[in-house]
């Protein structure tokens, strides 16, 4: 008991500190390191958010209430969930302290689902992994799934139920919902997010039964409505396409970032990478063509990339259709010739050559007409796409959304229930959602945070994280799975189902009962339901798909006629693209420190969004990195800092959505710039004819990489500005070894061709002449020797590994200021290098973590022996012994060691501490840290194998990065076991050691990047890959 008391006392203190410095993310993570006492920001914040003020409590009381509720919640969190959930693997009934349990669950994301396994330590979920049995995950995951743990333990989440800012009991809401005017629901509406949940569909049906005239509208700011409309135009009905990339040899993406932020990216990446897994020079691989206007991870992975502004995609497609017609497809198209003719012609030939194995993917922001044409061509190409029935009720309909807004504005909606989402922030500006919402008599907002929308709603209900609630979700191809709660709601939060039950059934029902009922009645129509139910919970997937794919045929003749009207860009005006952010998506992850601080692919930017401009435009308009520019569209304008990005189209400015949140808690509020005001319902994807004005002010942007290979060295001596650019260019082939498939076939051993002077003299190996290590201390040929292989051919730089590592290894978030000082802590950094034409560069990405050198330069120089080698070949850091001379980090040629310049975790709120992995020690200030090969997992597996009286076998140990990598580019295991996956990978002739000429003998080696360039294009489209 006394322990509990102490704990809650501590809690009050922590909370006082972190509340007082909320929102000061610039200096530190949870609180400012410099400015502990300044609480002005937060006071203002409290003033702004009326619901905090109106409850008649003093600020002090409020804080202590919050503190107490967190404390109680925290204690509650240690309890087991009430309903029976089934552990994934272990059979033990009792909890053994220190032994984690794994439960299967599902991460819902819009109208898709990702099967996950959640690692629980002492009934506390701390790590998300993909579920191997789940078809959309296949054991892999993405950065959003990896970072969701931090969302769960976000201390800024909404708590309980509030009515006009006053904290009320849930029963008050139930009473309110029961009393809702039920005259057929004429003046009642529900606004929900996209969902694939059968239970939500059930609720929808029940809702419609209870209130036949009420609206249920679905809105997502980033949606596939145009894709579905295009498919409807082509096939006569809305269907969900499912791209079977495993069967695609030629892929053409038209503005689709299918390896990045587009839906189903885990599946896409996994299956795309599967066909790039080159065993040797005799293997084949798929070929990716990308047409895009700004550099995306997909574009950077492309074998050929065409840089075209979005509004010209139609003309590219028209030309392509013309070529395909020539080659025999039944398309109504005229031959066209533009400057891109050779490129398009070659792509057309390639698509035709691989007919049945070729596919065109269109970006979700393309028009319905373009999607219609793409769908038609795909149909003709016999592209490996399955079409599944689409639950139209639960995808975005802008028409419905707009008419709802109109209704609201007219004052004809009395009760509005907003189930998640933040439409005040992210609705198109012409919908005037905020003004309309104010006309609603009584609005209910179920949300994670007290956000922009909550502010205008009378009822605020804390939304349960999917770790906390029962639910279900389904993949595009109809595989349904259960969302199992891992923990009791920390903040008295509720799920959408719970919010709806009193409205529909006029009584409070648990989501467990409803989910189970739905599954019993309409999904699992089998005898012995209970046993089946347990099995589904255990495995995390119901193996019978609920949907079957539809045979489809195009209704009309495919014609390019619909595309004949070209959009014209006025001179000196720009096309603006609204792109989802790879970090915060549409703004929903704004308060997630891990995602905010992860360097974005291509730009390496953290903590902010920016307007991406091409190098030429920057030169023309005299724009520098971080320079504020004003972008005007009609009467609306926003000010955004610019960032120069290679591969950006000269007619295009890309704006990332999801930033500039006003009410998003202490991490996300005020980070970046809100560009939604420019977005209207007619230009959700891109807008034409924007004006750009260069402003005379700059804004500091935090990028983790200074030199990407193309930018000038502004500070260099006069006349030598391009010195370092040339140097980086000449280093790229040495660091990221690469070739084309064609050249690789001619010269399979090309990775051995290192620049002459780097070649170590075999007769005088470095070891023999080392002053340090005349003879190896260990015999590395014995026992388990850990090693890693990273395949640069399949890596898409998606960041999943880096966040997985952060989650597994308790890596602190340091804040924008520290990132600008070059002190980010990520153990895995992803280097991006550009070469060639700045408008269409070749991108070489490389994820770099400690490579665990057998002859490690860091180990020699540590004065206290804090970094040493283990007998199984791992370069280890002994945090307790480290005194922080930082000599090891200086002497590391890979610069992968990270130093705790401050005590970055000192002020971690206790709730966030719950997200930390108890198997990994937190690092104090003044100590060095780096990749450990997830040694805690190695030890865990070894102990387990020892208990089972067996030796470790390949696959027993999954390190966090390799486990999450959706491209399966990372292999880890015992290099002394010739049959291990890593040994096999290292035996490939593409295997090379990074900076191997230094004689460090790294245990992590890379597989060279191979681009499958089309010989017809490689000469003039790209410069040769291997210099």
């Amino acid at each position, binding site marked *: 008991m006394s322990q509990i008391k102490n704990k809650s006392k501590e809690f009050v203190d922590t909370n006082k500190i972190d509340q007082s410095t909320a929102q000061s993310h610039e200096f530190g993570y949870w609180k400012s390191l410099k400015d502990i006492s300044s609480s002005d920001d937060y006071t203002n914040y409290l003033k702004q958010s009326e619901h905090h003020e109106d409850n008649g409590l003093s600020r002090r009381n409020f804080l202590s209430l919050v503190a107490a509720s967190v404390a109680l919640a925290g204690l509650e969190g240690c309890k087991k969930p009430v309903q029976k959930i089934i552990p994934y693997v272990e059979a033990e009934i009792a909890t053994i302290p220190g032994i984690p349990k794994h439960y299967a669950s599902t991460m819902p994301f819009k109208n898709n689902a990702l099967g996950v396994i959640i690692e629980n330590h002492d009934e506390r979920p701390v790590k998300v992994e993909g579920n191997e049995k789940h078809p959309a995950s296949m054991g892999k995951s993405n950065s959003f799934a990896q970072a969701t743990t931090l969302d769960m333990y976000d201390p800024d989440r909404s708590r309980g139920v509030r009515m006009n800012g006053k904290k009320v009991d849930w029963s008050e809401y139930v009473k309110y919902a029961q009393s809702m005017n039920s005259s057929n629901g004429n003046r009642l509406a529900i606004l929900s997010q996209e969902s694939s949940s059968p239970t939500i569909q059930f609720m929808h049906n029940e809702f419609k039964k209870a209130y036949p005239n009420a609206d249920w509208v679905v809105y997502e700011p980033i949606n596939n409505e145009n894709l579905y409309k295009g498919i409807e135009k082509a096939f006569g009905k809305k269907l969900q396409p499912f791209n079977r990339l495993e069967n695609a040899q030629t892929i053409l993406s038209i503005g689709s970032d299918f390896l990045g932020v587009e839906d189903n990216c885990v599946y896409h990446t996994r299956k795309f990478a599967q066909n790039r897994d080159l065993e040797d020079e005799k293997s084949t691989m798929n070929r990716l063509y990308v047409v895009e206007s700004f550099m995306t991870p997909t574009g950077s992975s492309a074998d050929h990339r065409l840089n075209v502004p979005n509004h010209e995609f139609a003309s590219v497609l028209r030309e392509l259709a013309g070529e395909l017609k020539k080659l025999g497809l039944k398309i109504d198209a005229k031959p066209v010739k533009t400057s891109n003719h050779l490129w398009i012609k070659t792509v057309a030939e390639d698509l035709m050559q691989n007919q049945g194995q070729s596919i065109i993917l269109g970006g979700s922001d393309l028009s319905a007409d373009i999607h219609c044409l793409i769908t038609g061509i795909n149909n003709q190409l016999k592209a490996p796409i399955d079409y599944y029935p689409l639950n139209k009720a639960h995808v975005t309909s802008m028409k419905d959304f707009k008419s709802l807004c109109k209704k609201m504005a007219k004052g004809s909606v009395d009760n509005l229930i907003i189930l998640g989402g933040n439409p005040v922030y992210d609705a198109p500006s012409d919908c005037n959602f905020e003004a309309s919402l104010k006309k609603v008599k009584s609005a209910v907002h179920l949300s994670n945070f007290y956000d922009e929308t909550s502010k205008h709603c009378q009822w605020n209900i804390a939304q349960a994280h999917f770790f906390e609630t029962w639910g279900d979700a389904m993949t595009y191809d109809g595989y349904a799975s259960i969302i199992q709660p891992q923990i009791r709601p920390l903040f008295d939060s509720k799920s959408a189902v719970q919010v709806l039950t009193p409205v529909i059934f006029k009584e409070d029902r648990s989501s467990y009962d409803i989910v189970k009922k739905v599954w019993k009645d309409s999904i699992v129509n089998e005898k012995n339901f209970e046993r089946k139910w347990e099995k589904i919970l255990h495995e995390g997937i119901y193996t019978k798909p609920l949907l079957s794919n539809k045979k489809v045929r195009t209704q009309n003749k495919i014609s390019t006629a619909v595309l004949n009207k070209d959009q014209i860009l006025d001179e000196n005006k720009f096309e603006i693209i609204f792109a989802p952010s790879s970090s915060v998506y549409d703004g929903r992850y704004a308060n997630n420190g891990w995602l905010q601080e992860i360097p974005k692919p291509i730009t390496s930017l953290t903590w902010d969004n920016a307007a991406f401009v091409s190098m030429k435009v920057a030169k023309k308009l005299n724009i520098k990195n971080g320079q504020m520019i004003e972008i005007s569209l009609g009467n609306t304008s926003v000010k955004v800092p610019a960032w120069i990005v290679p591969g950006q189209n000269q007619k295009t400015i890309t704006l990332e959505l999801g930033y500039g949140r006003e009410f998003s808690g202490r991490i996300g509020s005020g980070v970046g710039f809100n560009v939604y005001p420019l977005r209207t319902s007619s230009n959700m994807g891109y807008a034409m004819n924007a004006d750009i004005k260069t402003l005379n002010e700059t804004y500091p942007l935090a990028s983790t990489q200074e030199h990407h290979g193309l930018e000038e060295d502004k500070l260099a001596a006069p006349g030598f500005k391009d010195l370092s650019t040339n140097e980086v260019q000449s280093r790229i082939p040495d*660091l990221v070894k690469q070739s084309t498939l064609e050249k690789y076939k001619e010269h399979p051993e090309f990775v051995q061709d290192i620049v002459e002077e780097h070649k170590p003299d075999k007769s005088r190996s470095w070891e023999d002449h080392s002053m340090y290590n005349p003879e190896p201390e260990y015999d590395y040929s014995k026992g388990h020797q850990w090693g890693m292989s990273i395949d640069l051919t399949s890596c898409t730089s998606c960041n999943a590994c880096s966040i997985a590592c952060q989650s597994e290894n308790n890596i602190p978030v340091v804040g924008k200021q520290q990132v600008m000082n070059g002190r980010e802590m990520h153990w895995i950094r992803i280097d991006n290098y550009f070469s060639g034409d700045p408008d269409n560069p070749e991108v070489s990405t490389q994820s770099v973590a400690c490579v665990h050198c057998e002859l490690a330069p860091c180990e020699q120089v540590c004065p206290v022996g804090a970094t040493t080698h283990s007998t199984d070949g791992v370069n280890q850091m002994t945090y307790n012994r480290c005194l922080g001379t930082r000599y090891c980090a200086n002497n590391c040629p890979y610069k992968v060691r990270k130093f705790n310049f401050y005590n970055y975790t000192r002020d971690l709120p206790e709730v966030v501490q719950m997200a930390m992995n108890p198997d990994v020690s937190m690092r104090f200030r003044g100590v060095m840290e780096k990749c450990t090969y997830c040694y805690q997992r190695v030890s865990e597996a070894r102990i387990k194998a020892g208990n089972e009286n067996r030796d470790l076998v390949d696959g027993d140990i999954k390190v966090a990065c390799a486990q999450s990598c959706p491209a399966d580019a990372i292999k880890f295991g015992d290099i002394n076991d010739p049959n291990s996956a890593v040994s096999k990978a290292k035996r490939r002739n593409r295997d090379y050691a990074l900076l191997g000429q230094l004689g460090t003998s790294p245990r992590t080696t890379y597989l060279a990047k191979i681009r499958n360039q089309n010989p017809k294009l490689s000469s003039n489209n790209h410069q040769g890959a291997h210099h």
Partner: protein
Amino acid sequence: MLDNKIKSKAEVRAEKLLPGNQNFTTITNDIAGVPEAKTPVQWWLLFGFALSLLSIFVGTLGFLVWEGTGIWGINNPVFWGWAIINFVWWVGIGHAGTLISAILHLFRQNWRNAINRFAETMTLFAVICALVFPGIHVGRIWVAYWFLPLPNQMGMWPNMRSPLIWDFFAVFTYFTVSLLFWYTGLIPDLATLRDRAKTNLKRKIYGFFALGWRGGNRQWQHYELAYLVLAGISTPLVLSVHSVVSSDFATSIIPGWHTTIFPPYFVAGAIYSGFGMVMTLSLIARKVYNLGHIITVEHLDKMAQIMLLTGSMVGYAYAMEFFVAWYSGNQYESFAFINRALGPYWWGYWVMIFCNVIVPQFFWFKRYRRHIPFLFITSILVNIGMWFERFVIVVISLHRDFMPGAWAMYNPTIFDVSIYLGTFGLFFTGFLLFLRFLPMVSMAEAKLVLPESNPHHGHKE
């Protein structure tokens, strides 16, 4: 008449080094008079200034311990910044003392006698300033004692392969020997002060430290032998300390650090900067205390010659580094040096070249070697140049090493500056206290230059 005109060799030399008909009494009066006289106002002003710098040092140090090394500008990849630059710089300055005392003593260069006490004291305080940094630049200052090979229950031992440990021992050894050497040299002078002391307390304190010195023949014999032995021990240290310091860099793998030329080049640079500092200090003391007849232009000329020599050696090393980088054909090595001269910190490199290579070339001309204002400016430029040399080595090499993905710029913070300024407070506080309480020129040794100290003085030649 003829007798008067012909002077002995000793007399000629004495005339040159100690002009103006000086004898034992005048020297004792002039030198011992300084600590015995009333404290001059200038001293108080300087001391107040030094104390305020010292308080900046203490304040920054406190903040550093409280917050962590994050208050400095260091980052990834530049994990070492001003702290290490200052360490190497102060150690370098500390070189002149031993060189002047020991090596010139062994070579019987009597012109050193006017400046050796100065130089040795400067060495002591410079090494103290230097020794501050290894202790405070670490991340966890409270466990800095882990550098020491202290037997403990965990059986933890320093990693003797680490150059930082060599460094630690080298500098500590140097400090210990320098202290002994300085103190041994002080003993006869302390006895003089004891004998001349007016108050009982002074007599007791000076007497305690004078170790019962009576100036007897046997005592002088022992003294000379001990001094000679210490000089012998110190001499290799002059070469070893900075060689070992240089191995912090030379044994590493980083281009720009990984060079075998470092040990001799560091030693030359150290002597160069040490003489620069001795010059600065002696020019000030000479002015403040009117000691122009003891620290003469002849002494300054000799020091300038040594600065010309060592400055040119350093210049040669700079050139040789470039040659080797080019000759090696190693891309990374070559770029490290090109980046020094032409990269974003090019100005730092050219400041170094100007101060260390170009400026001392004026010392080919006697005019400049004896031009006091010129010497003063040069002596300061030398130490600016030598600071930049360490900046060039530490920061420019680190900020762009092997992987461009990890390249970054380094920006010092106010706390980098304040701790550096603070060490001047430490240095000058110590030095001013020395000037106040101890004879700044070795009386016993200065007298050796006089003809009277020649055993044959007074006898017909």
